[in-house]
């Protein structure tokens, strides 16, 4: 089991420059501590114009700072928006390779296509096309990383022969991921040999179904990269405290803030009728109250599967996720600063001390998480 932390960089109203600065500084401090404690990944989203919900529009800059201030934790784009109006694919390949170099081969490369009209409309992107451009991006970027001469005639862009530079440090290239919100996207990931990076809180039953389908399809995938990434990570929330009542109070306050902000986004499907967005993409609406007697969350009145509670509770919850085939969990630590920085750091420390040792993974070895560095770099 791998453990990661996941940043939206939400800034509570009234916001302003000082509040934004503080949120960024708090996040970097959390990353430094997570690195010391043995967490495996830091992920940062790419969102634009989403007031309060996410002020993380330049994740490559944030992740570069994380890379510079840490030594072992892997840095993840969670994820780059593969829409040409927002990111030209050549620039995506260049920036990601540079980030892989300066992080010493610690990049995880997540891809997405955006689900809000706020973002797509702001850039003048056509929602009908985003799935097609995402598919084009994920097929060409690994080639730009691995070929000395690359040319392309495609739908969203074309280019004559060039050598896209620099090349990433990892061999053959950084692991590829797809963010999965809507049912069915896990199959897009599987068909292309890409990791399934869940970014919606779903129930055990739904995740088990998605994971089984993903494992079945990826066994016969046609990988878009040179290497297949067959990992399944989910998104969760973390607030760990010795007293589960305190954990539930504080944790559910954070989750409530996150879900409310998320529900207030202006979804593409709501504004623009299209075949390309069959669900809203709302990631906070699927919390399910635990009800089965064997679920440890049921007795405590918590939604099932959440990383909120005392250490023993979290161990039992994560064991359940592990049993249904999830091999990584990425935790949102805060939302709109609903939890104080001291509480976040204490929660991380307690989790690392009492919960992480109960699970096998590189966090127990205190060595760099596995990557694919060329000979001489490992």
């Amino acid at each position, binding site marked *: 089991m791998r453990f990661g932390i996941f940043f939206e960089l939400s800034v509570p109203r009234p916001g302003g420059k000082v509040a934004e600065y503080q949120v960024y500084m708090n996040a970097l401090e959390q990353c430094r501590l997570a690195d010391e404690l043995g967490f495996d990944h830091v992920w940062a989203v790419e969102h634009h114009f989403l007031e*309060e919900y996410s002020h993380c529009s330049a994740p490559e800059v944030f992740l570069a700072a994380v890379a510079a201030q840490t030594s072992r934790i892997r840095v993840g784009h969670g994820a780059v928006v593969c829409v040409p109006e927002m990111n030209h694919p050549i620039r995506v390949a260049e920036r990601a390779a540079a980030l892989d170099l300066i992080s010493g081969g610690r990049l995880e490369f997540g891809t997405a296509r955006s689900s809000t009209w706020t973002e797509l*409309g702001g850039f003048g992107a056509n929602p009908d096309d985003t799935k097609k451009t995402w598919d084009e991006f994920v097929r060409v970027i690994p080639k730009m990383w691995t070929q000395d001469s690359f040319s392309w005639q495609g739908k969203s862009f074309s280019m004559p022969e060039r050598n896209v530079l620099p090349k990433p440090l990892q061999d053959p290239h950084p692991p590829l991921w797809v963010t999965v919100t809507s049912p069915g996207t896990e199959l897009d990931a599987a068909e292309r040999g890409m990791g399934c990076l869940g970014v919606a809180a779903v129930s055990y039953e739904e995740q088990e179904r998605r994971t089984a389908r993903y494992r079945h399809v990826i066994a016969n995938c046609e990988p878009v990269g040179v290497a297949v990434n067959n990992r399944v990570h989910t998104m969760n929330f973390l607030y760990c405290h010795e007293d589960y009542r305190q954990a539930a109070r504080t944790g559910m306050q954070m989750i409530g803030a996150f879900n409310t902000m998320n*529900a207030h986004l202006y979804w593409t499907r709501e*504004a*623009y009728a299209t*075949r390309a967005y*069959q669900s809203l993409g709302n990631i906070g609406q699927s919390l399910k109250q635990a009800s089965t007697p064997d679920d440890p969350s049921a007795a405590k009145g918590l939604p099932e599967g959440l990383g909120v509670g005392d250490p023993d509770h979290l161990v039992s919850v994560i064991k359940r996720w592990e049993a249904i085939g999830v091999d990584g969990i990425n935790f949102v630590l805060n939302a*709109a600063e609903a939890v104080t920085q001291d509480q976040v750091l204490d929660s991380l420390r307690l989790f690392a001390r009492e919960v992480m040792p109960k699970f096998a993974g590189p966090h127990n070895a205190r060595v760099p998480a596995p990557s694919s560095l060329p000979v001489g770099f490992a």
Partner: protein
Amino acid sequence: MLLTGSADVLVLADQFSVPTIAAWSGEPFEMVDVHVLQLIAELPRTARECVLPPGLHPTEPAALSIQAWRVGDSAIGSFTFCHTRLSCRSGVRARGMTTAAVASTTAAAMLLRERFGFPSHVGHVRLDSSYDRCDVTVLLDDTPVLVMNNLDPQPLDANDVQYTSTLNLAHTPNGLRLVQVDADHHTQRLERLTARLTTFDARAWGDSRIDPYFIVTTTLARAETVTLAPVRFVCRADISAFEGTESVRH
């Protein structure tokens, strides 16, 4: 925390000439052979909260939906109807708050006012659709207040459009409340069109600050059955839906 509306509820009630629902009806209202045209347009950022009450949250960007219905048949016969709604959130739910409505017959205006709280006036409403276009015209006192020409229909799947539930500010047996109207659409054909909004009298549609300056998309659903369910929930307009939601007893 979250951005909320800043309009005074009593001022809004006067501004929208809100109706009175004397008693709740447990009857659904079914309309058949309905054409529904929905245009979504962005509004200026400056208007995003000042035309919503404190109980609602504006979307970012602020947006207006214009819905025009041509009803082939119903319990009150055929009629046409057009209303404008501001996109918003009530608690965590996506909603549209009605700012004005015009119906082509007195019977339709009265039913929609008295049973569902639409601030309907009687006017001239036309929705003309053909193979290549759909035109909507609304006149009040013989003055055009809305003219839309929608061209070049492109077929979509019937389920590709999202209709959010409506909130109508009205005097009700529970007091001055936002009345939640849930419409169940069964669509056979859906098309997306390119819209031209050539006339929009903002004052006639509820507030002079409503300026649909950037059209996002327009859809036309043909041959629908639309059923307005009996009202189940109302919300206070001055406080959040988390605290202000009430069930309706028929």
